[in-house]
């Protein structure tokens, strides 16, 4: 009986041992996509820094005007994703070809459009996204995406010769990207929508207020300093 038991033990041991040798090798270098979580090292932090910028802007979407403008910005980033910004913008709206066509003899019509002269805005800036992008496999840009919201005032003037002035309370919304070009510098691209509540002198009797939107594309450079 002892001999028989030893035989079975030996046979079992052989079986088990032979099985272990037949297992395929585990490839520990392959990781599933779902398993990948990489947090990029943030090379250009903003927290605690003061950002000053100069920008060029255009307002190309109005039906009757085209507006070139410049803007100066000063922002304080209290958190990496939160900052407070002041925006001073100045510009001069021009009649576009449609306006000129209307004023011509064929139509004899003049829109009571208002010319953008300037605005002062105080925005809160929320920038939850920090990322980098690879451009053609040649270069990597670090950038962030931000949205802004704020209030302020816009100064406008009637384009008709009465040149009536309007100071309009303004709600500003925007979205933009900050592409870091160096440790202290960033290229900023932004789309702003300043929503004005505007009172127009010539039609004040018939309509007290107009809602006007100054949608602008803004591009500029900013400097981040301590």
């Amino acid at each position: 009986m002892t001999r028989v038991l030893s035989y079975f033990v030996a046979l079992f041991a052989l079986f088990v041992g032979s099985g272990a040798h037949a297992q395929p090798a585990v490839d520990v270098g392959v990781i599933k996509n779902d398993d990948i979580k990489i947090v990029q090292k943030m090379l250009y932090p903003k927290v605690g820094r003061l950002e000053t910028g100069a920008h060029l802007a255009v307002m190309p979407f109005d039906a009757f005007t085209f507006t070139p403008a410049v803007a100066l910005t000063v922002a304080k980033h209290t958190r990496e994703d939160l900052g407070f910004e002041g925006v001073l913008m100045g510009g001069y709206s021009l009649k576009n070809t449609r306006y000129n066509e209307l004023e011509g003899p064929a139509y004899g019509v003049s829109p009571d459009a208002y010319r953008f002269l300037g605005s002062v805005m105080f925005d809160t800036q929320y920038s939850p996204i920090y990322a980098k992008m690879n451009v053609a496999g040649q270069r990597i840009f670090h950038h962030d995406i931000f949205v802004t919201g704020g209030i302020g005032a816009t100064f406008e003037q009637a384009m008709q010769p009465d040149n009536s002035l309007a100071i309009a309370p303004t709600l500003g919304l925007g979205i933009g990207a900050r592409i870091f070009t160096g440790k202290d510098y960033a290229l900023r691209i932004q789309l702003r929508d300043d929503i004005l509540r505007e009172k127009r002198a010539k039609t004040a009797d018939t309509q007290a207020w107009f809602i006007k939107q100054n949608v602008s594309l803004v591009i500029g450079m900013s400097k981040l300093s301590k």
Partner: protein
Amino acid sequence: MPKFSINRTLPLVAISLPVAVGACNKYEMFRLSGYEQVSFSSEVDVLFVIDGSSSMSDEAGALLRNFDDFIETVAGGSGAGNATESLTDAVGDYISFTADRGRITDYRLAITTASMDAKDAWSLEPEGGETGLFVGDDGFQVVYKGDDNAVHQFKQNLGCWGACWNGAEMPTNSSYIGTTGDCPFPDSNGDGVVDNNDEVTTQYLDCLCTDVSYPEGEDWDAIELCRAGNELHLESTLMALCRATEDPPEICYHTKDSTDFPFEDSWIGTNTDWMRPDSTVVVVYVTDEGDQSEAVVGGLFSGSEDDPQVYIDAFEQFDRPIRFAAIGPDLICEGDNNCSFPCNSGGASATGVKRLQKLAASTGGFYNPITSGDGDDCPVSDFSVHLKDLGKLLINLQSAFELQSTPDETTIRAYVDDEEVDKATVNESTGEYTNGWSYEPGQNAVVFWGSAIPDFNQDVRIYYRPLDGKPRDLPF
């Protein structure tokens, strides 16, 4: 199925929404008038509609006597002046518009009578002065500013074709001196000056009408030149305009069923070369009767109404500014019904006179009484005053900018070379305006006054919000 990602969606919404909405900013649309310098037209086509009845000889004489001054007013010092194609041409010729505004008035003058009877004169077909046809020798019915003998030609058309004379009862002046083409108005009472006491003499008409092509054996004294019957001033004007255009509006054919004067295609263009495409037409009535353009005699008035709206509507079909002035019976009304004639030598009716008065008032013209004083033998009023008023009216056209829509008057703003012009105020006692502009509802025009009248080369812009809201259909 892709997962919804707030990080992807928000930027898309943020970008697309304001862009879409931003293009829809709402602006009030104002009308803009006076933009074109060509709209500042100096072209005025004047039609005199004369009452050609025998009772009007004194008035025709007064018109002849004072016509030189009228031409002086509207043509400037040179009399005939120079015709200009447009204001732009005039700019080169004249330094100052405001200094001598009459110089740039490019007029054309024609005369017809209020007679709508085609059988009045020598033939059964319409002749000059009938059914709106211009009077005058063939080819000389229209007097142009550029004519060297414009004054003489107009006087000839009036004195030799338009007026009715009775040579047997007219004064004579054997010492009268005149030559063909140069016939001064006679100093008939011999006091050394030509004034309102002087009358037309037979010698004067002999001189004036020497080279007129009358039918064989006829002259200025022909009875055929005297128009009797109904005086249809407004209907005659309508027919004159219908004859003057190559494309008459529908209203011209309202007489097509008339047996007396059916407007027909053969009439088109018979008053040729008078009414220009961009001109203003001024119609001047000279009459001692009122208008009688009732439907029963071929007019448009259905009854005895004194509101000329039916004719205003008819004239609007010619799609041009037309203004009316009248030198007519002296009708004084207190209220609308309590009217009286201080002097009614022509046997006018109040209704017929009111038509002319209202027509003149509604188009910014004037109505002056043809007589002065009262009684049966009241004298002819001073035609020099009437013709000066007419001269002012014509020149005033240079300062009047017609608007395309009826404006909300409170929104009118006028600019000359981008400088805003203040609104003028009227002096209640004198009726004169201060320097500035005023809105004239009758003309639907903004009129500049005094030193505010724009000079040559100045850009005039008038902005206003139309009463009916949206100015017109826009292309976008």
